[in-house]
Each structure stands twice: as C-alpha cells, then as structure tokens.
C-alpha cells in the first residue's frame, strides 16, 4: 500500500495570472529553483478572469489537485481583479465543501513576481499533500468514450 501511494504522481493544474504568479514562476526558473514537474500552468491575464467553472473543468478532466494563484491584494495589475476573485473563491469554497468536494485539493495562493521561491514551495507542498490523498476518484469525470466506472443505464 505504501509504495502504491508514493508511486502515485498527482496531476496538478494551476490557474495563474500573467502579471504576478506567471512572472513569479518565471523567476523560479531564472533562479534555477527545482520543483515537482507535476504541475501544468494555465496562463490568464488576471485572477479576476478565472471562472470557478474552470476549476471544476480541471477536476472533471482528471486533475487531482488545483492551484489558483495571482497577485497579492493591492498589487493587481488591473487594480482590483484579485479582490473580485477572492470573493468568488470564498463563496465557491464554501459551496464545494458543502457538496463534499475535498478542499484539500484546491489551493489558493498569492505569489508575486518576486516570489520565485514561494512558487516552488507551493507546488512541492501541494504535490506532497495531494500525493498523500491519492487520486481524486470521488470526483466525477467527463465522459470520453472510455469504459466508465459505473454503467451508464
């Protein structure tokens, strides 16, 4: 059992804003700080652009964990996009929790363009946590023509 857990490589999707976290992740690279290769970034202009449906979409497509990250409050390139996003997340998290979506799989962070190290820490930390949780089988997946776990009829 133990080796099965450690063999599991979680699939992480990160929704990040262009101006802070994407740039922060660039800095991680420039600083040659190593982190787990499990994460895939979706670059959007601003956290305000991140529709809550995108997070569900990521899980529905098989993500085991999701990271959402943008500029620190007050630093938004568009002044207030992250403030709007934050309210959306607050409500969304409450709903997810209520319907039984595991909040340990949804991580929110502020990572600025200067926080390259924080980005690496974040990814590694989320990866470790999701690895311990295992694959997110409890979340339904999009039908894709492959055999489904439960019969359709």
């Amino acid at each position, binding site marked *: 059992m133990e080796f099965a857990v450690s063999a599991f*490589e979680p*699939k992480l*999707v990160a929704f990040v804003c*262009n101006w802070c976290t*994407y*740039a922060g*992740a*660039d*800095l*991680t*690279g*420039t600083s*040659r*700080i*190593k*982190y787990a*290769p499990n994460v*895939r*970034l*979706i*670059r*959007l*202009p*601003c956290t*305000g*652009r*991140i*529709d*809550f449906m*995108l997070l569900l*979409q*990521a899980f529905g*497509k098989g*993500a085991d964990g999701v990271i959402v990250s943008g500029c620190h409050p007050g630093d*938004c*390139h*568009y*002044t*207030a*996009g992250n403030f*709007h*996003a934050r309210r*959306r997340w607050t409500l969304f998290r409450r709903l997810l929790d209520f319907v039984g979506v595991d909040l340990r799989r949804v991580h929110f962070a502020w990572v600025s363009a200067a926080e390259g190290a924080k980005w*690496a820490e974040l990814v590694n930390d989320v990866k470790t946590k999701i690895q311990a949780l295992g694959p997110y089988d409890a979340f339904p997946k999009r039908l894709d023509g492959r055999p489904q776990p439960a019969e359709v009829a």
Partner: protein
Amino acid sequence: MPRIGVFICHCGENIGATVDAAAVAKAAGELPGVVHAVDYKYMCSDPGQNLIKEAIREKKLTGVVVGACSPRMHEPTFRRACAEAGLNAFLCEMANLREHCSWVHEKLPETTEKAIDLVRVMVEKVKRNRPLFPINVPITKTALVLGGGIAGIQAALDIANAGHPVVLVEREASIGGHMAQLSETFPTLDCSQCILTPRMVEVAQHPNIRLYTYSELESLEGFIGNFKAVIRKKARGIDEATCTGCGACIQKCPTKKIPSEFNAHLGHRTAIYVPFPQAVPNKPVIDRAHCTYYRTGKCKLCERVCPTKALRYDQEDLLVEVAVGAVVVATGYEVKGTDFFPEYGYGRYKDVITGLQFERLASASGPTLGAIRRPSDGQVPETVVFIACAGSRDPAKGLHYCSKICCMYTAKHAMLYKHKVHHGRPYVFYMDIRAGGKMYEEFVRRAIEEDQVSYIRGRVSRIYEKNGKLIVKGVDTLLNSRPVEIAADLVVLATAMVPQPDAEALAQKMKISYDGDRFLNEAHPKLRPVEMNTAGIFVAGACQAPKDIPETVAQASGAASKVIGLFSKDELSREPVVAVVNRTAPPLFSTCVGCFLCETACPYQAIEREEIKDRNGNVLKTVARVNQGVCQGCGTCVALCRSKSIDLQGFTNEQVFAELVAL
C-alpha cells in the same frame, strides 16, 4: 483545417540540456493539425526567426507555437516575426519550456514529457486563436484641465506649448488658486505672486488656451481620446467681452463689508468684485447673495458707473460642451481642521488664526499690506506661537495623514515674522520636523539658528485668554516633559490639507477612484503616479495627496507630458486583448440579458449600455457593450457573466477549455 507549425528552441543548453528538444519536436509533429515541427539551437536568433518565417510562407501555416522561453520574454519577438511573414501576430503562442520546465526540473523523461504537454496545450490553444488587430481609437487632441491653481496652470501651459488646445476650467472668478494667496514661498522666500502672476498672464494670453473661470465641470462622458465634457459657466452678471476691467463698479459698490475669501476672511470685499488685484481675467463677478440689487431689487449703482455698459443682471448659467481627448484633474485642496481642536479656541479668539490667514497677514497685498498685526486690535504681536500638526497626524483628534507642507510653512512663517518683527519671540510646537527636500532641512535650521525661532517638541493642550494674552498650555517633551505655558499675542495653527469639499462628488461624476480621505487615487502609487485608473484622465497637485509647490509643478508637468504623449499620435493603438460582449442574430441580438452586474466589477468603467432598437426607434433590449478604448483586458467581467455573453479576446473561454482538454 488548421495548419500549425511548432518550433522548439534549445536555447543553447538552457533547454536542450534538460529537455530532449528533438523528441519534443517529433512528438509535436504527430499532433493533429500540426503540419510542421522542428527544433533549433536558438529560435530567437535571426536564422531561427527565419525558420519560422519560411515555414509560414512555404507551409501556409495558420498558427505558430514556439516552444522556448517565457512569453513574457520573447512573445513580442516571435509575434513580430510571424507578422513579418504575413501571419497575424496573434496567431502565435509560446510554450514556456525554459522558465517553467527545463530550468526547474531535472533531466528526466518526465521533464521532456512535460515539455511535450506544454507544447500540445499551446497547439490546442492556437488552433482556436483568431486574428486580432490592434484597436485604434481616434484622439481628440484637446485637453481639459480642471482647476486653475499652479497645478492646472502648469499643466495647461505645458500642453498648450506643445501645440495642443487646452480648455482650462476654474471655479473661482480668477485663476491662481492657493498659490496666489501665499506671501513668500519656502525654501527660497521668493514672493509667491511674483513668480505666479506671469504664468497667469501667460495662460490668459496663450492662443491655445481657452479659459473658463467662474465655471465648473457639469458632466464628463466618453473615454480616452474621446471625452465629452459639459462645463457650467456660472453667471458673472457682466459681459466679459464688453467689460474692460476698469474697476469703477467695484469702487462704487455700496456693499463693502463682505469677508474676503481671498484674504481668508481677514479683509473685506464688495459685492461686485475681483478676488484680488492681479486676477486673471481681471473681470468682476457679482456675488448675488450679497448684492443689494439682487436682494432688494434696487441699486444698480454699478450699471450707472460702468463706462462700457457691461452689466448683465439677468445673465444665466451657460452650459458649454467641449470635446476633449484627455483630462487633467488639478482641483487642489482646502485648509481645514480648525474644529478638530476646539480647545485651541479658533473662532472664539480672534488672534488664533490659520496658516493661510498668516500668509495673508504676511503678504504685501494682504489686509495689513504685509505688516504682521494681530486681527483683534491691529497690534504687532510680541510673542507668536505656531502650532504644527493642528489636525494632521492625529487620528484620535483629526486626520491620520501628514499634510506634508506644514513643517516647512511653519518654519517659513516663523522666519517671516522674525524678519518683520525683529524683537518678536516666535515659538513653534511640533511633533517631528519633516524637512525632506532640496534645501528644506537647511531652511529649518536657518529658522532655528539664525532667526532664533524657539522650537518646542510637544503638543498644546489648551489655549485660553487671560489679561489680553493667549495662554498656550503645552508640554515640552524634550525638557523632561515639563508643562510649559506661553503667553502669546497671536497663535497660528498649521491646519491640515484636505481635498476640496466636493472632491468626492467630482470623482463620482468623472468615475475616477478616491481614497478614504477623498484624495484621488493614482493608477499605481509608484509607477503610474500621474494617471488615474480611467484611461485618459490624469492628476496633478494636492487633489491627489498633500504636496508642496515644487512637487505639484513636477506632477503637473508629468501629467502634461502624458497628455502630450497621448496626443503625439492621431490614433491610440491598443493591444486587442479586450473583452467583447457577443452579438447574435435577432431576435436575441446578444445573449447578454442586460443585468449589468458586470458594471461594478469592471475596474475601468468600460462597460457601457447599448440600446438595441427596431426600425421605429423603439428600444427592444438594452445590452452591455465593452468600450474597447477603455477596457484593459483583465477579464473579471468574463468570469462574472452568468450567460457567458462576454469573452476575452486572446484568452477566450474556448481557448482555455481547449488548453484544459489538452492537458
């Protein structure tokens, strides 16, 4: 069918040492829709770019993915290369194989796999890219400057001197603002009016400046390059074209005891008046609240003596509409806070005055012609106490912020007093002395050392009158915190600098943001200090935050240069990464239902209302429209729209979904 070209860069060893670039290119070549996939040592080099250009031409590519460094680094480079080869620049995307992959992971098969993933995601995205074209917004090359103080004057002159028409609006009867009221200015002690009035005259005579005094902004609509401003020209009661400014009416006016605003209520003026002798324009206005004719229906003495028959008693406010491309807000401040400290007795004791009143006392054009005489009995005060921070930096009693200019003007006042009353004893109660600025610290030292101003570090608790003296009770925190009492003849409060009383209303009218103290919010506190969040609106002077004259002038010139920069082109060209509200066939017209919940989410007020009408002009539907000149492309509205009627060009829902599917 899409024809996508994929170009994988080794970036020398930067990518190549960790990621198997050739394998990435090979894998990319097998992706559906990819017709061309190569790797190369340095894609950003000229030969590398030529590889892309040639492939675009030869393979008739409909989209390009460059797997290289961060798009924040070279996206413009590769997009330009694509455009040069005839492919719309926005059909090029970059996969970040360096910063997000080769530099942060070990040389392992997973790393190359991740690189392939990143390329595939971008291939799927670019298949859904549409050609986008820079948004060109025509620019009306006329600037509106609100406020005729030194900030507005400086901005207006700079813009006008660059050759652009300027509409300058001042709500008082003359331009000049607070600077015209000042006596001498720190740290040079040069005469304020002497340096200001030439600028005022220059404004009046400048061919590019249209001056509206005694006027206010009624409304502002539109967006950068294309504003429509309506100016309310208040009724002066005289015909400005006919009036020669001879002043006969003022001489004859029987109502003479009206407190003069210009003299900070220390002197008087008549009902028909010019605020001060050097006023620009030097044309009087009638103060209808005090004028005998307006109050009783009789008098008209002014009309009788007017040599040019310029009086127009029945004149009404006039609304003037002007088209402008940029706005500079320079509406200034007021001095306030006398009621923060009732125990100082301002209003109860005539000889407790504000700093601005002291300016008028010290001014050669003031009520005492520059002699320091106390208001109560006209005596020369032997002892004067100056109280700094009388309202500022004290959240318990007044304002939390520092008014910034008080330290310097208090030192100046004490000096001016000492220069005029050689045997006088000036005292200054202060919290800290903030004298950052060129020659500022030296100026304060001069006051203390050469002019022997007694600086007492401590607060004043109370002022009361006794035997014709004002007893100032305070504490000296440097002298073992002993209570001190000074029997003064005059007390000057360094009252706080606050925004104009109607600053909030003006900001709302212009849809620009302001802070909790009602000062206007610049777009970025460091990097965009003269811009407002609303594109095309700029800020100068103390309406943004307390500041002194040099700073104000610098900011005004900064704002002017932004306007001039904007006006240097005929059209404003903007990145087409903007939100768009969809339009569909009738009878729906748009899937937008017009709830306008997006309106308040937009940080730029870019959401407008569009009425969809039938042939007879009946409104069928009101839907949202994004003003592309104003939208900055954050996409907050896109995420908020329930019916998905708004999308963000360059980051469309379809593109993002395709990216997720490809993961």
